[in-house]
């Protein structure tokens, strides 16, 4: 849980942007939409797990 998760997010974002461009240029608009949605979901799950870790740490440190 160090810096590599940040770079993962950046990688997924750029990859999704490129794939979206390629698919939309190739005329497959719906698949482009699907891939960007899939990328969004992947990134969201990563972020949500990290947020839950943060809240858990705060709860244990401050015994909320």
């Amino acid at each position, binding site marked *: *849980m160090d810096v590599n998760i940040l770079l993962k*997010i950046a990688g*997924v*974002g*750029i990859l999704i*942007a490129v794939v979206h461009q390629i698919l939309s240029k190739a005329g497959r608009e719906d698949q482009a939409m699907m891939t960007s949605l899939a990328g*969004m979901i992947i990134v969201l799950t990563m972020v949500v797990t990290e947020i839950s870790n943060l809240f858990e*740490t705060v*709860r244990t*440190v401050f015994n909320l």
Partner: protein
Amino acid sequence: MDIVKIVGIGFLTLIVILVLKEFKKEYAIYASILGGIILLTMSFGTISEIVGFLNRISEKTSYNNSGFITLLLKITGIAVLVEYGTSICRDSGETAIASKIDFAGKIIIISMSIPVISLALDTLLQLLP
């Protein structure tokens, strides 16, 4: 807790955010959230040491104040979380949501500190002739 490491991670997050703003606008907010989480968890190690130190000191004092220190820590934890949430919301331009989170945080803190206030008032009334 190496300050150079913290500043370095901050700059790396900044760069990732700027790059992501270029390609995909909505991913920048995820990068800023994650950067905030990384920096916060790095400083929690020291915070837990401080908390342990505070607890040891509170046990030594004579009068029974076990509730005060835990209450103080709870309020600090709430303040840390509220500040984290509001700053992320303000970053992405949603000041309305930030003010709502702020408001709710203040209400929770006030409601938690009511027993302490009443205890202080009681002791004050006893002092008066």
